[in-house]
């Protein structure tokens, strides 16, 4: 079996975040985890070539990257396209998902990737692409690649794919009907009794729809409105006094900007493991646009800029955290009589 593999700059051995802008490279043979993939596949499986691309480049040039990958695959014969594993790297996951889908749709080549359930690539691609559940722990790489190999083999061979639990992929959100032994009535009473006894039970259908947030009414008169800047890019005062974590943050902070027209590099740092923070470190206005907002305030475009900006880190942050963080921020925002929020997000 001939395999094409897609890796980011880190797994491709180029380097870490500072190389995220690296453009696409196509190398012969297996690279990094691709070698593990080959050995776990067995049966003379070969990674024919590896695409290596920086995460930022991939997201910012998605169309070009996709075209280049498709072109290479059109010209070569491969049986399977593997991307990642991406774990909780969001840009990597989004790129991997996009490429897998394109490869499947445009070329009819089977594809498989792997990422953590909270990876933004999952929501976008789970229904069309097989995404192995990798969790966030990179030390489990071997296990994950093994699952990708097993699933990839089945996909390439056109075999029937089992349930998410059996094969290790994130549920894709498709229903398949099956005759079972127990009547619905029996299953219903079983489930109730488990719930009453506080025993674990599995609902037959998870609610996946999020209640839509109705769009709040537009600000009537911006020139009288009080506006606050909020960010999930992890900008914090030097020293990170609130110890906001750079991953799955459980805390947020409100930081004084009274009288300031500009955010100065020496006053701030960035607690966020998910992007190259150099540029924001050089000029924090690139994340929290205080200078521009101050001008708006001076020119009367807005009524008042609130004296603090609110900050947390959005990286790999499960809803169980972010829902709470959001609610807490809202509490404060309401208390301060703020009319509108500009949220900047990386």
């Amino acid at each position: 079996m001939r395999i094409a593999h897609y890796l980011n700059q880190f797994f491709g051995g180029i380097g870490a975040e500072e190389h995220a802008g690296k453009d696409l490279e196509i190398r012969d043979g297996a690279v990094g985890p691709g070698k593990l993939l080959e050995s776990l596949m067995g049966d003379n499986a070969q990674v024919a070539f590896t695409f290596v691309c920086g995460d930022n480049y991939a997201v910012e040039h998605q169309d070009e990257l996709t075209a280049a990958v498709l072109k290479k695959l059109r010209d070569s014969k491969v049986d399977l396209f593997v991307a990642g594993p991406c774990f909780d790297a969001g840009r990597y996951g989004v790129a991997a998902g996009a490429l897998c889908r394109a490869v499947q749709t445009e070329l009819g080549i089977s594809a498989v990737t792997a990422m953590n359930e909270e990876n933004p690539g999952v929501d976008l691609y789970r229904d069309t692409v097989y995404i192995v559940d990798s969790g966030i722990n990179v030390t489990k790489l071997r296990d994950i690649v093994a699952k990708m190999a097993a699933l990839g083999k089945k996909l390439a061979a056109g075999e029937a794919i089992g349930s998410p639990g059996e094969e290790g992929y994130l549920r894709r959100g498709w229903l398949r009907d099956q005759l079972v032994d127990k009547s619905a009535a029996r299953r219903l009473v079983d489930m109730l009794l488990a719930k009453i006894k506080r025993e674990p039970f599995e609902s037959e259908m998870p609610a996946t729809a999020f209640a839509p947030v109705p769009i709040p009414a537009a600000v009537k008169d911006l020139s009288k409105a009080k506006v606050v800047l909020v960010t999930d890019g992890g900008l914090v005062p030097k020293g990170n006094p609130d110890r906001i974590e750079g991953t799955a943050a459980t805390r947020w902070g409100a930081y004084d900007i009274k009288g300031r027209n500009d955010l100065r590099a020496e006053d701030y740092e960035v607690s966020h493991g998910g992007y190259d923070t150099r540029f924001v470190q050089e000029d924090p206005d690139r994340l929290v646009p205080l200078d521009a907002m101050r001008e708006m305030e001076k020119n009367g475009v807005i009524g008042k800029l609130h004296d603090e900006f609110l900050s947390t880190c959005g990286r790999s942050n499960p809803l169980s955290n972010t829902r709470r963080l959001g609610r807490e921020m809202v509490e404060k925002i309401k208390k301060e009589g703020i009319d509108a929020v500009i949220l900047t997000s990386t």
Partner: protein
Amino acid sequence: MQLTLAPHPITDLQFGPNARLDGTVLTVDVAALRQVVLQEASIVDVEFDIVRPGEPCRAGPIFDVIEPRAKEPGTGEDFPGILGAPLTAGTGTTHVLSGAAVSVLAEISPDLTRSATGRVLEMSGAPVTASDYAALRHLIVIPHTKPGLPRPAVEKAYRIAGLRVAVELARSSLNHTPATCESFDPVGPAESGRDGLPRVVYVGQIFSRQRKPEVDEPILYGANTEGMLPIMLHPDEWLDGAIVPSLHSWFGGTETYFYQNHPIILDLYRRHHAREINFVGTVATIAGSDNFDRDRHCRAAANLVKWNLRADGAVLSKYGGGLPHADLAETARLLEGMGIRTAVMVSDVSRDRRIESALLFNVPEVDAIVYNGGNGVRWELPKLERIIAATPEFTKLLTGPLTVDAANIVGVTNQQGASRMRSLVY
């Protein structure tokens, strides 16, 4: 309340001049049955047929499936409020021809927007494992109504005729000793000796105000449920003829047979007998006609469960189409808020087989959901020689080969808990 069921197992039905039960073989007297059916003025002619498990034959569209049952004389009314006085169902002795069924055909499809064939009874081939009805011996009633009658009158005639035939058949067993006798343990909100066991209630919708009921449409003790608020019923009332489905069989997935053999109620009884629960009662409710109506019903039902039945847990089922899911979820939500744990059973509304289309509600507390699937299954039914239908058009339509959705094989997708077709998440 003490109901005793006296089952007489039936292994075969056959036609003959005198209705009688010999061991497990029931002889069916069509001349006598004809007289019974023609009591309905709307029906001008009728035929009968018998189908057995495994026979390569097909009948449809099915209006209703009824288990032949008859009350021991003096111990109650058969289908009270419909065939006789509205005495309380669920007392005395009821003789049951188990293993048999009376299936009434309709002359036109109940809802052409859903299916040309209506629901089909298929006795052989792939669908049989999915429907309990394929394992029964059916007396098929093929009615011919007066042309030009309004639809509700026709359907009412089907209903009454079917119930009468089912009772008449079962009367052959009245002087016979039943195989066993099954008495139900007393259940109720004040039964003693059940301390420490979780108090469990069944809340079942019996109608949906997606439709307005006909003036004389019999549903609950013959009443049409118009203006009705939720009511507490003893479980045996469900089992012993107090409730029949709406005349509008496009509501889908509800037959008299599974009121008589209500899977949820029977399972709750099983747990009650095994001393796992204290089955304290049931509530029959209606899915509302609008949001206001819904709130009214859901609150009333929840209040009965909380304050009158004092339940610890409730299982809930729905009736009708999509909208009643909102009532189901709202009732469950209110119960959870009152500290009562719930599990709900929904029907398949996912047309695109996507999980995001599967649930019509998103209520975090309503997190125990049984999902009756089926929208993704269809069967290729072969051409058959023997088709039982009321019109030549239907005979032609059902001859096959034809593709039929699972929901259109009677008994496969059932809202009373009989279904074994699940939708698994992939």
